[in-house]
């Protein structure tokens, strides 16, 4: 505690940060023990949460945003928006008086306006845009959200109105624009850097409108931010934010205990009990926006037979997996979307654990002495803390119904590559963490016919299911969408392309002096709105 106070008091000695101090008041510095270095500071280039924590979630704003700690959409840099009746035109009315950061290399001469929106999106959309290839940019999120196929044009109506014209209706479009890749950059800064012959500075010395601005970055060591004094939603409660990069989870906990940091992500599961009892620490927890599953290959016999898939699902003792693998930090999954997402169909009944019935069902399906492979991920992921252990438990469950399982694993990149092959031999353990809180982000991305041979690891293309999710994607009415997704979940359960295993619970320890830190359902760390006692 004493160390923390000292840390806070002395950090204000840094001359760069003095500007943020109000006369006489002790500045508040929050130290976050982050798990790794960001790949860079332009979130449009990357897909990793570590990078988004360091960039988009502190430095930038988007047109729309997620209400802190929820998946609820709220206005961001756009005060409001209007969708045309045919769902093809989205007109955004921009917020006035929004200031960009002032840095060592850039002093903005104007407020945020429509030019910044045009610059941000056209850079990613238009391959001939002067900034498209700057910093060898690859816009993977923009591409994977099908934005190049979706967007027809982006029009500046006036300085504070922008219109996005789509080629087809897309109900989750507003949610997509709240994602990290849609972080808004300063067109004026880009112009200035281009004229100076250093266009890549836009990506490495970022200027945004976000609640914090970058002070310095020392790779693999620390990132320092200060509160944006003119933030449009009001200055952040903390004056300085420091990311102390600490890759090892046990060391992060030691630093938290020693008062060297206030918040840490990804605690070691083995430390959770001690954290819960630690008088200096509050252990926050929240159901994760994720699902861990076992995907059969519906294109390869006998897994093309729904009876076989259902029988295998009945043979899995999911509660035992939850206890042993998730150590209680999870919730049994029956649907392919987590209960925290709207349209979750709680009326769906899960396959009952019944090895005897499973054995009989396999015999009825004409399957005898089945031998199969189960692929176990070589890495720990938020939705599956120990895939190898899970595979061993599945192996034992399947053995009990007469199915012989061989467990295979590959190095992570190879695993991702091979697991999407259509003729893949065996069932794959994998999972997903949502990007934007929309059911489409799970159901279409992971189970749509268009995703077969790619993120649809079950290689399952079911026309009634696909029709339902495609219809839900173009319908604007939320009630109608909820109904359609609810029906899609029923079809999913009947067809059983996956064995849905669990939705993990996310834990985040913070020190007691931290006020109002909220776990982000998307797995991020947002510090605007957080205070220190």
């Amino acid at each position, binding site marked *: 505690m004493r160390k923390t106070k000292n840390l806070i008091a002395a950090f204000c000695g840094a001359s760069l940060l003095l500007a943020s101090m109000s006369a006489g008041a002790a500045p508040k510095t929050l130290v976050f023990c982050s798990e790794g270095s960001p790949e860079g500071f332009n979130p449009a280039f990357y897909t990793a949460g570590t990078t988004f924590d360091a960039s988009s979630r502190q430095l930038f704003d988007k047109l729309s945003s997620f209400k802190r700690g929820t998946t609820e959409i709220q206005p961001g840099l756009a005060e409001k928006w209007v969708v045309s009746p045919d769902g093809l035109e989205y007109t955004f009315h921009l917020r006035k008086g929004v200031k960009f950061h002032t840095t060592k290399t850039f002093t903005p001469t104007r407020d945020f306006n429509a030019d910044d929106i045009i610059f941000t999106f056209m850079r990613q959309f238009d391959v001939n845009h002067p900034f498209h290839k700057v910093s060898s940019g690859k816009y993977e999120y923009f591409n994977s959200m099908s934005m190049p196929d979706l967007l027809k044009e982006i029009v500046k109506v006036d300085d504070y109105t922008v219109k996005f014209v789509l080629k087809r209706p897309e109900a989750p479009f507003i949610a997509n624009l709240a994602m990290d890749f849609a972080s808004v950059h300063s067109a004026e800064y880009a112009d200035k850097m281009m004229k100076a012959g250093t266009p890549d500075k836009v990506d*490495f010395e970022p200027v945004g409108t976000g609640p914090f601005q970058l002070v310095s970055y020392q790779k693999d060591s620390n990132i320092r931010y200060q509160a944006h004094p003119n933030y449009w939603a009001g200055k952040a409660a903390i004056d300085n934010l420091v990311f102390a990069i600490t890759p090892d989870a046990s060391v992060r906990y030691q630093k938290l205990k020693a008062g*060297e940091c206030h918040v840490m992500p990804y605690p070691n599961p083995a430390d959770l009990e001690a954290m819960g009892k630690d008088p200096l620490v509050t252990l926050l927890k929240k159901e994760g926006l994720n699902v861990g599953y076992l995907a059969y290959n519906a294109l390869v016999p006998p897994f093309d037979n729904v009876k076989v898939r259902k029988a295998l699902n009945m043979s899995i003792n999911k509660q035992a997996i939850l206890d042993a693998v998730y150590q209680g930090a999870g919730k049994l999954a029956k649907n392919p979307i987590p209960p925290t997402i709207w349209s979750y169909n709680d009326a769906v009944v899960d396959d009952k654990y019944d090895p005897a019935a499973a054995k009989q069902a396999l015999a009825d399906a004409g399957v005898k002495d089945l031998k199969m492979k189960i692929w176990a991920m070589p890495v720990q992921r938020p939705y599956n803390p120990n895939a190898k252990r899970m595979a061993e438990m599945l192996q034992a469950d399947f053995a009990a119904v007469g199915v012989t399982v061989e467990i295979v694993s590959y190095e992570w990149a190879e695993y991702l590559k091979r697991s999407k092959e259509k003729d893949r031999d065996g069932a794959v353990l994998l999972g997903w963490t949502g990007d934007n809180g929309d059911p489409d982000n799970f159901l279409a991305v992971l189970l749509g016919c268009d995703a077969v041979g790619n993120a649809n690891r079950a290689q399952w293309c079911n026309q009634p299911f696909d029709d339902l999710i495609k219809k839900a994607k173009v319908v604007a009415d939320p009630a109608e969408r909820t109904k359609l997704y609810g029906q899609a979940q029923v079809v999913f359960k009947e067809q059983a392309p996956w064995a849905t295993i669990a939705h993990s619970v996310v834990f985040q320890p913070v020190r007691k002096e931290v006020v109002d830190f909220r776990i982000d359902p998307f797995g991020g760390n947002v510090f605007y709105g957080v205070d220190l006692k």
Partner: protein
Amino acid sequence: MFGYFFKKLLVVVPTFFGVTLVAFVFIRTLPGDPVMLLAGERGMSDERHAQLMAEYGFDKPILVQYGIYLKQLAGGDFGTSIITRQPILQEFATLFPATVELSLCAMFIAVFFGLPAGMIAATKRGSIFDHSVMTGALTGYSMPIFWWGLLLIIMFSGILGWTPVSGRISMLYYFEPVTGFMLIDSLLSGQEGAFVSAMSHLVLPAIVLGTIPLAVIARQTRSAMLEVLSEDYVRTARAKGLGPQRVIGLHALRNALIPVITVIGLQVGVLFAGAILTETIFSWPGIGKWMVDSIFRRDYSAVQGGLLLIAAIVMFVNLAVDLLYGLINPQIRHTD
């Protein structure tokens, strides 16, 4: 002496060339590719994958890629990181001082404690001290760095609160790096307490990284000293009535140092290997952790460039050690 130096240099050139080939092939033999990792669970269409592979130039025949790489190297270009889009040389130069600082301190600890421990153990052969040193050395050599590091953190940072947990300096201090060496930069900053903070952050990682070299040096010094102490000239020196300090310090130690210096030179490679784990545990921003991250991310340019630069440094140190032999023992440069 020049001929001796020239001969040694001749060996270095093909070795360096070999390293470029090994570094280039090594990262490409690993399964998976950086483009696939970029997409994660989300996946990527085959068309997009092929497009990105082509944009990075990974679709070209491997020999062509190697040729391009050598051409770039000849121009002093170590490439640009696929992930961070930063020049490799710049990333290396930013992180290298941290590893050097840590390695030098670790080596200082290893030599400062290892040499005397080995010498005393040899002169007091069979004593409790000798057995203690040898048992300690074996234990030190056998301890996994990761476990040892965590143990020290829990003991000295967690329970006793004597040392900081990790990092290079307290977050209290902020100054722009000048040399990249935190001890020097903290002094240059003029901020009160900065140097002490940097020193206190260095203690545990240096002990952890220096443990294995310390054990090796102590054992090597002991065995070299034992061998030398049984030589005729030592017996003669003693017979002539020279004091033990003069016999051990002048006659025995100088000759015993040759294999010890060889071992110290070889420990530079060990230090770089150990730095990978030490840097990860202590959040030390050096090249060890950078290399591991680059391998996991299949950042071809970073791995190639990093391996090459590290190999060049290890070769340089070994060359320096070889030259040092020549200085210590003129017989070597004449017979080699």
